[in-house]
């Protein structure tokens, strides 16, 4: 039932970069999904450990807290590539052509500025928990079983950096559309036309019997 956003592709450098990055983004998102699955397995182990072996899973909460950043961050660029993050499109939906691409360019640029700053801020957060001289390089650890927190904290700047790369590609795409006055630019999420949707829908229904 995966719905693929309509991002047009061709043989250009931009499109090849877009697809290359998309492969990475999909892997990161899958890691995030597997982490959710892992949470489920962890709970099953915890419950059965307590009830059948009278031995609770040590550090259950600590492990959950380590897994959460995987779930919360790793798919962030994947969602952006497909236009998945929530927005209000009442105004944007009414725009066409160069005005539309200009609006998209501006808001995407604002996002890029924000995310570059947050890469800085979240990396600083990581750095405060990291110390080459300390045991396990740790200057901040979890409550119960004292897991070092720096690997989990490092996930934020990593995922945010991938998002920055994605935003640069989208800026390139929107900028190109704005410059050339394109109607269907590549490498940016587009609103589908009715015919494309019908085709996608038909594919979807034959795809699964959910």
């Amino acid at each position, binding site marked *: 039932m995966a719905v693929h956003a309509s991002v047009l592709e061709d043989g250009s450098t931009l499109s090849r970069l877009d697809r290359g990055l998309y492969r990475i983004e999909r892997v990161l998102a899958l890691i995030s999904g597997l982490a959710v699955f892992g949470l*489920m397995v962890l709970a099953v182990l915890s419950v059965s450990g307590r009830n059948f072996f009278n031995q609770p899973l040590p550090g259950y909460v600590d492990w959950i807290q380590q897994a959460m950043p995987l779930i919360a961050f790793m798919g962030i660029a994947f969602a952006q590539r497909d236009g998945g993050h929530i927005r209000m499109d009442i105004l944007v939906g009414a725009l066409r052509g160069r005005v539309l691409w200009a609006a998209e360019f501006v808001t995407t640029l604002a996002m890029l500025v924000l995310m570059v700053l947050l890469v800085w801020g979240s990396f600083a957060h990581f750095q405060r928990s990291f110390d080459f001289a300390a045991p396990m390089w740790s200057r901040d650890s979890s409550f119960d079983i004292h897991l070092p927190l720096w690997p989990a904290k490092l996930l934020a700047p990593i995922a945010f950096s991938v998002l920055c790369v994605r935003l640069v590609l989208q800026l390139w795409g929107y900028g190109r559309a704005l410059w050339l006055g394109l109607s269907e630019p590549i490498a940016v999420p587009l609103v589908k036309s009715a015919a494309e949707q019908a085709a996608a829908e038909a594919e979807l229904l034959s795809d699964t019997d959910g």
Partner: protein
Amino acid sequence: MEPIDIGIAVTAVLFVLVVLGMRVAFAAALAGLVGLIWIFWSKKGYDPDEFGWALSVAVKTAGQVPHSKVSSQALSLIPTFIMIGYLAYYAGLTKALFEAAKRWVGWLPGGLAVSTVFATAGFAAVSGASVATAAVFARIAIPEMLKIGYDKRFAAGVVAAGGTLASLIPPSAILVIYAIIVEQDVGKLLLAGFIPGVVSALIYAGLIVGMALAMPGFGPPVGGFTWGQRLRALPPALPIVFVVVIIIFFIYNPLGGDAWGTPTEGGALGAFVVFVMALLRGMRWRQLRDALMETAKLSVMIFTIIWGVLIYVRFLGFADLPGAFSNWITSLEMPPLLILVCILLAYAVLGMFMDAIGMLLLTLPVVYPAVMALNGGEFVSAADSAFGMSGPMCAIWFGILVVKMAEFCLITPPIGLNCFVVAGVRPDLSVQDVFRGVTPFFIADAVTIATLVMVPGIVLWLPSLA
């Protein structure tokens, strides 16, 4: 400029960014970051030499929020509850529920829409997230309704509204978030949502029947099912009951013994059962991968909103806007029930512009203590209280009211997450179409909320047993 003025100015900037179509999570984070820079710089009297310092402190303060806020055990319920929803789709539960509902109540006026409401209510018992429920049913119910001639906007509206039931009927991610913010018993809150969820579904169904009777060409009933066909439709939907029992027993043991564990564990075990069912029904790696990808995508959307809004909330903390609001509310000289109604109305207005989770995170730290104080304090007895209920019961009652309001916000324009999701799944529908289709349900929700305010027993009966 005083911090409070900065708070108001930055809030205005946030609205402009959102209207311009910037992704909400990032608009909130950007507004929060700009606000933090402003506040820190103002502390140095806007000295140009100190701008670098203010920028650095603001960026580092904001940079803590994403990791800090998502690393929470309680929030781990959210992806788990979402995953149940997607796995249930592959376990065939969505189709089975919809089919059973169709055969049993399809003969009613507006039958297919009523069936959709009951099927979403049933699905709510395994799904913890409104948006996941709306997304799944948009794929199943909308095509069927379109086939027999429903208006596509109304069909989308039914699904968007039906999806909100998932947040009252346990398991519910947003009730968990409420419990975390106000530090109340997660289990009792989850139990308390059950009956109001059912009442809500009945009121939706009543509305649809009324509309079908009043409007010619609304969408024909689907009748002609024999009792044999009806009974045969039940067994495929029965596993839902199994999952419900697990989740309930992990919250509260109706047989009188100890509950079996915590809600976190109950949710995960429910997911595991559904996962096994999906495997038995022939789910392969490709479908599991799709379900995990969808879970990841919806989770990251929600978590991005959570940390984005919380960067903004962190800024509000420095601007002390919540404190100013609190002082104002408690200085009002009005009957407590009237103040409560005003608060709920304020939520309705705020919810037009905000996402549900963001709204609760933003307001509860301020509003919850005020409401508890209105009732007579945290430890007040039912006899001495303003609303006729003890402190802990008031916390539960207000929680259900606020979550119902927050769910209402999921279907109100301009920012209504459920409507965005339905429009996202069905690209032939614009967000505006879905908003138009869902409008009648505003009336149903208003009736539900009024009922819950007047008859608190609907909320409080179940938790009072636990």
